[in-house]
């Protein structure tokens, strides 16, 4: 990273590159930045999509050594819901606020036409919340808790055959909104040989259906080799376990069968550790790509509201002017509604007054009759 490269950087056109005659000290800048980030803490949001019982909670518990268990859900929910859980993890001096959002009732309905819609709506809602905060006049983006989904783990059923239609439908609706990492759940029910075939089939189906999944970045020399190899392991065949089994003198996460023990953290048994490693070492990149998805959402949303960068005569239109116009529209609408409600209220009052008068008249009559007797 020579200084001359920086000189050629598009933003630095017109700047001279200077050489320093002695140590200035701004090489501590990354440390200063990191110190602040560590103080502020990090956050990461994972979305798990998969059928009921495919092992989402077990996998999350295994990945992060934290209990993400919740009450077992029924198969009889009328539509898909999402459940979010947050926990704080600390490792050396890094504090991570991890949020895991799981689908509940995915794939259980008889008619699966709109199964994916609640999921898409949820992702959009997080983008919308961030956009709202960003557009506020007085905002606090610095302390805003970012709830945008950084990665989506899509659980594929271990049928050993191919992807289901619902998988393709859901993935296609999500691939332009979130980073998708496909995983094969309960992978200990497939044999090694079948697994290879299954993985190949899945990947080719994804490609032929034009579904974009997250590729681990290969542009940085230090990690490109590892990442290229890992990209070849997609989709990850994972096994999760809430229980620990005593092996030797240690307690390890594993699933105990009569014919043996499947160790979650053993790389020859399953890809859980690979998934964990890849998630952790690419967190920044996942967040970066999420920002790009957010920008796309923001652009579509603002365009839908009628905002443009270039106005009718090809002159740049400021967003503020559009916001002002919309605000004016909104105020006028509010005034109109207020007027309407006032009118209705007056009408009701008059009606009620007339009713009471009539009732009074009627009530006063029997008194006269009584007095006669």
């Amino acid at each position, binding site marked *: 990273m020579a200084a001359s490269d920086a000189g050629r950087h598009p933003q630095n056109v017109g700047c001279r590159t200077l050489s320093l005659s002695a140590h200035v*000290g701004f090489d501590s800048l990354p440390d200063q930045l990191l110190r602040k*980030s560590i*103080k502020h803490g990090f956050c990461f949001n994972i979305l798990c999509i998969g059928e009921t019982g495919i092992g989402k909670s077990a996998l999350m518990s295994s990945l992060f*050594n934290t209990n993400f268990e919740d009450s077992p859900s029924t198969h009889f929910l009328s539509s898909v819901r999402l459940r*979010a859980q947050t926990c704080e993890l600390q490792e*050396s001096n890094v504090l991570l606020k991890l949020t895991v959002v799981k689908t509940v009732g995915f794939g259980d309905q008889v008619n699966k036409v709109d199964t994916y819609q609640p999921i898409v709506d949820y992702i959009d809602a997080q983008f919308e919340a961030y956009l709202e905060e960003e557009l506020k006049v*007085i905002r606090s983006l610095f302390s805003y808790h970012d709830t945008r989904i950084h990665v989506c783990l899509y659980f594929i059923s271990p049928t050993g055959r191919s992807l289901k239609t619902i998988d393709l439908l859901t993935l296609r609706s999500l691939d332009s909104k979130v980073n998708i990492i496909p995983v094969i759940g309960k992978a200990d029910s497939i044999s090694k040989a079948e697994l290879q075939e299954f993985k190949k089939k899945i990947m080719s189906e994804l490609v032929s259906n034009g579904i974009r999944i997250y590729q681990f970045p290969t542009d940085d020399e230090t990690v490109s080799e590892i990442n290229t190899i890992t990209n070849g392991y997609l989709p990850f065949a994972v096994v999760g376990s809430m229980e620990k089994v005593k092996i030797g003198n240690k307690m390890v996460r594993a699933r105990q069968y009569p014919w043996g023990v499947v160790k979650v953290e053993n790389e020859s048994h399953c890809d859980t550790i690979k998934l964990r490693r890849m998630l952790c070492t690419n967190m920044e990149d996942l967040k970066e790509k999420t920002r790009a998805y957010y920008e796309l959402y923001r652009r579509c949303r603002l365009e839908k509201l009628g905002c443009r960068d270039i106005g009718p005569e090809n002159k740049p239109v400021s967003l503020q002017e559009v916001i002002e116009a919309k605000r004016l529209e909104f105020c006028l609408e509010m005034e109109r509604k207020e007027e309407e409600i006032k009118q209705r209220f007056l009408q009701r009052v008059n009606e009620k007054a007339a009713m009471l008068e009539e009732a009074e008249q009627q009530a006063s009559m029997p008194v006269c009759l009584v007095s006669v007797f």
Partner: protein
Amino acid sequence: MFKGPVESKNEATMSELVPEPRQKPVVPMKPMGINTSLLGYIGIDTIIEQMRKKTMKTGFDFNIMVVGQSGLGKSTLVNTLFKSQVSRKSSGWNREEKIPKTVEIKAIGHVIEEGGVKMKLTVIDTPGFGDQINNENCWEPIEKYINEQYEKFLKEEVNIARKKRIPDTRVHCCLYFISPTGHSLRPLDLEFMKHLSKVVNIIPVIAKADTMTLEEKTEFKQRVRKELEVNGIEFYPQKEFDEDLEDKTENDKIRQESMPFAVVGSDKEYQVNGKRVLGRKTPWGIIEVENLNHCEFALLRDFVIRTHLQDLKEVTHNIHYETYRAKRLNGNGGLPPMTVETEENHESNL
């Protein structure tokens, strides 16, 4: 501001078979001290390395402005700070050149690199400040320039299709040079700092500190601090932006003892005790710039560059820029006035 899970639309018709909690905070992981076996390590602390790599790749921007009457050694000081010829000294006005009628703003950008860290440094000079006969409102062009940079950034931020990284030309730090009169601050100093301390981070420095003895220096500094306090001028680091106790104690010490830094600048080297040092040679001795016994240049350098550079940028972005933005979006500034009176003031919350 946590959005709960999405609920189905048919909730009213279908009875709940399973109780539906909205959010369940989970028991946090056991602290590292207890479970340190390999099983316990997840790897989330690698995020630090990832961030470091990312920031090294993108590089940093830093914009520093120097304000003060001519002849106070501004250019020399900036050159000494960044150990290179970032600022060309104005060699005084030639007879052919006219003294500028107003304050000029000259911004020159450089790219410097150290230890793999690339920095685009912009030094903004303000020749003509305080040099006229009538110096009323000579801070206005400076305030205008600073606000223009905020405006530029705001325009980029409000675009529909935004750049991935918005170029940052906002002034992160303004070094204000105080004349070493030994008495007190001049009215011009107070006026400038009063107007600008709300808009930008101001770091006052006492220039040409080699004209004062140690006692005079301490007295002058105390008096300056007192005057700034009396006039309600909050210089950087501002008390209200201390994030936690650690920051507060560190910054309190700087605010109450060290600032304003009494500095001497030089770009010439001399031999002292077998070492080559930057200094000023006088008949009565060599003033070593980086010697803490001689002047406080090293303190200023460490403060601005080695410890608080990132913080200067963050205060500019999170506080000064946000203040400008809020004023701009609320105050209708620059837009044609709306003809209809609105009853309430809605926040632009789309």
